[in-house]
C-alpha cells in the first residue's frame, strides 16, 4: 500500500479568513474519508458563497477546530509566512510488542497538504495584535481591493475543493477497507514549522 500525497493549491489568506478556509478544506477532506455511516451536515461559509459538507461527527469537528486554533496561534507568532497543514490518514498496525518497545505503528496511506500563505495587509491604523477570535476585516486601502481579493480567494478555494474531489475520485485503490462501526479512518493534523520559500506547492 502506497502513501498518496496531495498538495493542494496554495491560498493566500488574511488572518481572519484562516478559520473558515481551513474548516472548509479539512472538513471536506475528512468527509471523503469518513466512510462509515454519516449524516452529512451542510455548512455555509460566512465569508464566501460556498457550502461544504461535514461528516457530522462532533469529535471530528472538535478536533479540527482545536487544530485550527493552534495553527492560528502559531501564525500569530510567525506572521507573513507560508505555512502548511498536513492532514494524514493512517492505519494502525500493531507491532509485535517486544519487551522494550510497545509502540503502535502508524502506516500512513494518505497525506494532504494544505498550503496557506497568511498575509497581513497594511492597515491604516497600526494595531499589533490579531486576536484569532476577531473576524474583522483589517483596514484596507480600498474596499474594492478587498472585494477583489475576497473574490479571488473564493475562486481559489473552490478550485481547492474541486481539487480534493478529483483526487478522491482518481485515487481510490489505496484506501483501506472499511471497518465495521468505524466512522472515519484515523487521522492526524500536523502543523509543520514554517516552510522554506523554495518549497514548491501546487
Amino acid at each position: 500500500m502506497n502513501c498518496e500525497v496531495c498538495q493542494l493549491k496554495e491560498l493566500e489568506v488574511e488572518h481572519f479568513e484562516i478559520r473558515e478556509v481551513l474548516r472548509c478544506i479539512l472538513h471536506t477532506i475528512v468527509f471523503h474519508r469518513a466512510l462509515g455511516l454519516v449524516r452529512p451536515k451542510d455548512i455555509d461559509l460566512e465569508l464566501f458563497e460556498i457550502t461544504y459538507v461535514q461528516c457530522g461527527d462532533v469529535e471530528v469537528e472538535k478536533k479540527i477546530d482545536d487544530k485550527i486554533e493552534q495553527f492560528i496561534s502559531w501564525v500569530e507568532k510567525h506572521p507573513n509566512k507560508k505555512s502548511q497543514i498536513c492532514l494524514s490518514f493512517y492505519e494502525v498496525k500493531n507491532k509485535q510488542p517486544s519487551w522494550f518497545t510497545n509502540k503502535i505503528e502508524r502506516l500512513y496511506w494518505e497525506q494532504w497538504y494544505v498550503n496557506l500563505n497568511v498575509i497581513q495587509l497594511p492597515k491604516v491604523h497600526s494595531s499589533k495584535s490579531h486576536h484569532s477570535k476577531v473576524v474583522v476585516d483589517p483596514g484596507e486601502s480600498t474596499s474594492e481591493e478587498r472585494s477583489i481579493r475576497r473574490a479571488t480567494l473564493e475562486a481559489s478555494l473552490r478550485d481547492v475543493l474541486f481539487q480534493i474531489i478529483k483526487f478522491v475520485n482518481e485515487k481510490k485503490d489505496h484506501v483501506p477497507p472499511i471497518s465495521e462501526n468505524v466512522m472515519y479512518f484515523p487521522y492526524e493534523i500536523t502543523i509543520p514549522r514554517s516552510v522554506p520559500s523554495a518549497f514548491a506547492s501546487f
Partner: protein
Amino acid sequence: MASSHSNIHSEAAKMEQIITEFYTKSLHIILESRSPYMSSRNFSGEQILSSPSSSSSSSSSVRPRDKWFNLALRECPAALENLDFWRQSNLEPMVIDVILVQRPVNWDTVNFSPQRDIVKNLSSKERYPFCWGSDQEEIGCEGKSEKIVERWVVQYESRKVRDCSSGSRRSSNNTLSNVYKKSILLLRSLYATVRLLPAYKIFRDLNSSGQICMFSLAHRVSSFVEPFTRKEEAEFQRFGFTPVDTSCGRLCISVLYRSSLSDVNSEPSTPMSPQVIPDYVGSPLADPLKRLPSLPISHGSPSSLPFSRRHSWSYDHLKASPPSVSFSPSPTHSEPHVSISNLSSRHYPPMSLPPHPPETSLIHKKNTSFDEYCPSPNFTPSASPSPPIYIPGGHLKQGLLRSESAPFSTPAAKLLSSRQNLSPSSPIKITRSGTSKIEKNMGPIHSGTTMEKLLSLGKDDSRRYSGVKLSSNNSPQVSFSRSSSRSFQDDFDDEFPCPFDVEDVDMTDRGSRPESFDQKGLLSEPLEPGGFFPIKKSQDAAVGALVCMLKKAPPLRQDLSSTTNLSEASRPESWSNSVQETSRISKAPSGQNAPSPSVASSGLLPLKTTADALEELRSYKEMKNLLLSQGARSHASADYPSPAETSSRDSNG
C-alpha cells in the same frame, strides 16, 4: 463447484443490487439539492435542510435506505417519485435534467405553484408529462421559458466483451466490498460536488426565499433524451466522476452544467456577510425632517429602474451625491428581492424620492398593468419601502465580484447594469407577497398606526376623534395618495402636504367627515402632523412628525377606568354635542393661554388634570396657527427652504 457457482450468482445478484441502489442514491443526492421545497413557501428551507442533517449521526433512526453507501440523507419526495416513474433496468442510463423555469411578467401568483415536469419514458417512447401544480395555461401565462442548467447522467456501462460471470475478472480490485467502497467514495464526492455547482445557489435561494420567484427549478428524469446540439453543448462544462469498475462494467456519473447563469438572479436573500451600512438613513418615522434626495426623473422608459429604490435606499453608489441607504423596516429578510426587475416589469415610472405616498399615487395612476395584482388603491409599491437591503459599496461589490469569482458566474442582473448604473448584483425576483407585506407595513405606519396612536391618546376625547375613527383605516391612506399626488405633481410646492389636511377633495369622499371637520375646524387640527414644525416638509416627514408628537404627548388619561367609562359613554354622543364642547374648548384658549380650568375639567374631561388639558389646548392652538400659516405660505414660493435637497430638485419635473 456448486457452492462457488452459487457464490457467483449471489455475488452477481449483490452486484446488481449495488448498482440499482447506486442509481437510487445518486438520484437522491442530486434531487435533494435541486428540488426546492414547494410546500413550505414561507418557511425557510434552511430549517428543513439543516435539521435532519445537522442532527448528529447518532440521533434519529436510520432507515434501511440510508444505510446504503453509508450516506444518510434527508427525505426527498422528489427522488422517490421520480424513481417510481423511472424504474428501468440497470443497463439504461438515467438522465436527470435540472431545468430553470423562468416565468414571464404577467403571472398570477395566486394560482401559481412551481411546475415540475416528470416525464416518464417508456420503452414504447410514449411520454406522459405530469405537471404538478396548477396548469400554466389556465393562468394565461405565456412565454414560460425553460432552460436546462444541468444534465446529470448516471449509467452503468457494462462490458460486453467478456463473460461477466467468469472468475477471471475477479481481481482484488473488483470484489464486492471494493466496489462498494469505491461507490461510497464516488457518492461522497458527488454529494460535495452537487453543492459546489452553480445551480445549488439557485436551489438555496428558492428555498430560503419565502416568496414567489420569477424562476424555479424543475427536473426531469428519463432514460432517453435528446442530446445537446454542438452549439448548446458549448455552453456547458463537463465534470466527470471517475468510474467505478465492477466485474462486469463500470458505474459512471457525469454532469454537464452551465457555468454561468446570467439570466437568473440568485442573490441570497440576506447579505453574505454583515456590512456596515454607510450613510444609513433611517426610516422617515425616525427622522422625519430628513430630506432624502429624489430620483432624477429623466428616464422615460418604464422599464428602466432608477425608481426602484432610488429612494433613500437607493444604492446608486456610483453617483457622487446622495447618500444611499438601506431602509430598515423590511418585514422579511427576503425583502431585498422585491426587486428592480420586478418593478421594471411592472412598468414603474421613475419615482422621485421623498414621499412614499407620492410614489404610491403615481404608480397607482400610471400603471394600469398594476391593477391585476395590486388591487388596493393605496397600494404602496414594493419599491418604496422595501428596497433591496443591498448596501451600496461593499456588499454590492461583493455581490458583483461574487459573480466573477467562481468558475461559473451568476451576475444577477446584467440587464439592469446595462440600463443604468446600478450594480449588476441586484436581484430579479418577483416578490409579490413581499409587496403585499410592504403594503401592510407602510400603510399602517403612515396612517393607521398614526391613527391608532391618535385614538389611543385621545380615548377620552373620542367624541372629537370619532369622526376620524369612522374612516380611520381608509381615509388617511386615501388622503395620502390624493394629497400626495397633488403635492407630487406640484413639485412639492403645494399647500402643506398633510394626510390629515382639511381639504375638500379629501374630505368629500368621506361621508361624515367633511361636515365634522368643516364645522369643527379645530377638530381636524389635532390631526395635523406638522403642528409643531415651522417648515414645509414631505408627507412622510409630516407623518413622522405627527408620530413624534404623539409619542411625546403626555398621557391624557390619568385614570384608566374612569376615562374608559367616559369614553364609552361619550361615543354614542351625537356630533352636535361634540361640536358644542369642542367649540367651547376651542374658544376658550383663543388669544389666551389659560382656558378656564372649570371648563376644561368639567366639560369634556372631568378626569383629566387641568395641566393636561392646558397642554392639549396649547397644542391645538399651535397647530391651528401653523395650519393657517402654512396655508398662507403655500401660495407663496415654490421652493423649499430645506438645505438637504440638492440635485433632487432639478430632477423633479
